[in-house]
Structures are given as C-alpha cells and as structure tokens.
C-alpha cells in the first residue's frame, strides 16, 4: 500500500515491520553465533563427534536460514523506510523475539536434545548453559512485552478519519 500520510499506517505495514524485525533478529543471532563463538572464540566446534544426523539436518537448515533471514529482513526494512511506514516499536519487538527465540532454540534443542555441539568444552557447562538460555529467554520476553505495549498503544490511539 502506498500512503503519503505517515500517521496512517495500514495493518499490512505493521505486520511487515514485525516480520522484518523477527528476520533481522534471527539473522543477528545466527551471525553472532557463527562469528563470535565459532570463528573468533573457537568455543563451538564445526562438528562434534557425538552429533546425530538429526542435529546435522537442523544445523544445516538453521545455518543457511540465518543468512537468508538477515538478507530478507534488511530488504523488508529498506522497503518500509522507502515507504515511510516503519513501525519502529514493532521492528524492535520482532528483533528481540527473533534473537531470543533463535538463541533459545539453539541452546535448548540444538545443544541439548540434538547434541549438536556444546557452548564450550573441558569446562563446567552449567553456568554457560544457564547464561545462554536465560539471556535468550529474557530477550524473548522483552520482545513480547514490547509487542503487547505497542499493540495496546495502537488500539488506544483515536482512529484516523477517512
């Protein structure tokens, strides 16, 4: 939709703001995981001997998906900016939900259930696992609260006259 009036944001664009945020959030989480923990710190391993095939399948698709998410999210964001209809609160809410959700999936499902690799080796894992998952959970929670708040603010706002 094309709207010259910036005060009137159609539902499609608020949804697109949230989508852009979620995609960028997932992408950033995947990017940080890959660069910081795999490449810079060398805490994570490319392949851990105990990984079952299900873990490799999940890893392959989430790794590829992470890159595609960040590219797709940035294109959607550029499109919103071009139209002047970015719902900033939704973008942030989506970003936190995407980042927290992906990291929680990585920390609980991929690390623990699929035993893809662990956060770090030859150390007591518990503090690392707790930090990883609690941070992710807080991010997800903050994103959901932000989303609720912006939804409430929207419904309280007087409807624009057509």
């Amino acid at each position, binding site marked *: *939709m*094309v*709207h*010259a009036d910036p005060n009137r944001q159609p539902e*499609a664009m608020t949804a*697109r703001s949230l989508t852009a945020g979620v995609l960028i959030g997932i992408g950033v989480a995947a990017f940080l995981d890959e660069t910081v923990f795999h490449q810079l710190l060398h805490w994570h391993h*490319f*392949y851990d001997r105990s*990984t079952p*095939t299900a873990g*490799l*399948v999940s*890893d*392959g*698709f989430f*790794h*590829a*998906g992470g*890159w*595609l998410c960040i*590219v*797709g999210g940035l*294109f959607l964001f*550029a*499109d919103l900016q*071009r*139209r002047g209809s970015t719902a900033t609160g939704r973008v942030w809410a989506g970003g936190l939900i995407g980042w927290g959700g992906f990291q929680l999936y990585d920390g609980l499902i991929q690390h623990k259930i699929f035993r893809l690799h662990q956060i770090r080796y030859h150390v007591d894992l518990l503090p690392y696992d707790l930090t990883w998952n609690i941070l992710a959970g807080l991010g997800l929670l903050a994103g959901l609260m932000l989303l609720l708040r912006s939804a409430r603010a929207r419904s309280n706002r007087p409807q624009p006259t057509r």
Partner: protein
Amino acid sequence: MAPGSMAGSGPLLRLGPVLVFLVLLAAMVAYGIGVARLRARGDHWPWSRSAAAAIGFGCLVAVLVLDPVLDLVPLLVPVHPVDVMALPAHAVRHLLLAMTAPLALAISAPITLALRTFAGRPRRTLLTVLHSRLARALTTAPVVLVLDVGVMYALYLTPLYSATHRHPYLSALVHVHFFLAGCLFSWYLVAVDPMPGRASTRTRMLVLFLAAGSHDLLAKLMYAHLLPQHGGSPGQIRLGAQIMFYGGDVIEIALAVAVLSGWYARTGRQLSRARRRQSETGTGTGPGSAEVSDETPGTGTSARSTSRPG
C-alpha cells in the same frame, strides 16, 4: 597422484580444455558484439550486466587453468604440491564452476541480450525454445532442486566420486552437469532473463533456502563421515568440506541479494508510479487513487502479469 595421468588417456581429453576455452572465447566475443550493437543503435545496456559477464567468463577460465597452475606452483616456489585430485581443489573448482560462474552469467542476462539483438529466424527459434514444454518442465522447483543439489548428494555420498577418478570421461560429464545445473538454478532464482511461468519471489526464496540448507547439511555429512571415498586424507576431506560450507554461504547470500533486489526494484517502480498518479490526481484520498495493490514478496508474478499491457 599426477593429474597428467588423466591427460594421457585420449586425444579428445587432451584437446578438451582447449576446445572449451575456444567455446568460451566465442561466447565472450558474441556477448561483446551484442552489447556493442545495442550501444551503436543508442540502446541502454547496464554496465553491471557486462561486468557480471566478465566475472562469469573469468571464473570459467580460472577453472580451466586451475589444475595446471596448481601443478606448476611447486616447480617455481618451494611449497608442498597441491593434490588436484583431492577434495579441497575439487571444492574450489566446484564453487567456481557450479556456483559463482552461473550466478554471474545469470545476472549478465545473455538471453535478454540475444532477444534484443537477434532478428528474424534465430530470434523465433530462441523464443520457441524458451516457451517449449521442456523449458517449462526444467524450470519447476522440484526439478531444479533435484538436478542441482540431489545430484551432489549422489556424487559425494556414493562411490560415484571414486568412479570419476578412474574414468576421465565421467569426470568431464560430471563437471558439465554441475555447470549446467548451476546455470539452471541461478537462472531460476535470479530471473533477470525472461522465463515462461516464472515462480514468485516467495517460492524462489524457499527454493534457495532448501538448496542452501541441503548444501550445508551435505558439507557437514561429508566432514562427519569422511566422504567422498578417495577424497584424500581425513584432513583434506575436512578442509574440502569446510571450503564447501563457508564458500557456499557466500554465494548463497549473493543469490539472496540477487533475488530480493529484483523484487525491491520492481516494487520501487510500482511505488513511484503510484506516487506520480497520486500527485496528478491532487488529494489522493479516495480509496482508488491513494492505494495500489501492494506487491508482497509472494505475489511477484501475478502483479507482473497484470501490469503487462494487453
């Protein structure tokens, strides 16, 4: 293993690279002549397309000279000889031949160039081929995926890879297949050239996601199970699998950018058209004038076909 042993098995194989080089040269010259003819009659042809063509042909020439260069290097400087039959060299070759070159060539839009420079019978023949049932069947998502990624699984996870070491013709066939399948994949995704029944942006992104995920999974499977057989020492196979994994990422990101910049440019044109219309009608508050149907990434083709005149 000396790669020279392969060259001794027939005159066609020894001449093969030279013939391929001549074909490449002819294609390069043809592209250049096409662009020059467009320019001469005052038509616009984006320089980015010519640059993409140069990169594409450059990658293919690099594949041709990679093995001889790798053989020569240890003779000139004291380094450990590179085993050109082992997986790392194969992975580099594969990234250039099956991924980078096809992507660059798809962006260079040679079919569009041909349609704009050819006239009469050659042009009609090209259009017939483009609209043929075979072309339509080849450019459907499952076929593209099976030909591009499915065959890779067959090559690396079965004894087929070892067989290509024993039979040079099979090796040549596999390389030709990878180039052509890579072209099909890139043309399908980039979609700069005309294609009947082109898939929507959303479908193409989904196909890219499936292919990229399968590619990364295959690299990890090879690393984990030390496949393919005869891919070299465990260290060489692990290095080759990582080249495939991270090199693949770079090309996959480039492919995603190529797919989505097409969508971005198309919606941008619609947006500016709508804004022009809005300023012409003045207020633009009426439901019909203020809004145009938004093209989400999912409805690429439908919006495209409705905007076509007639």
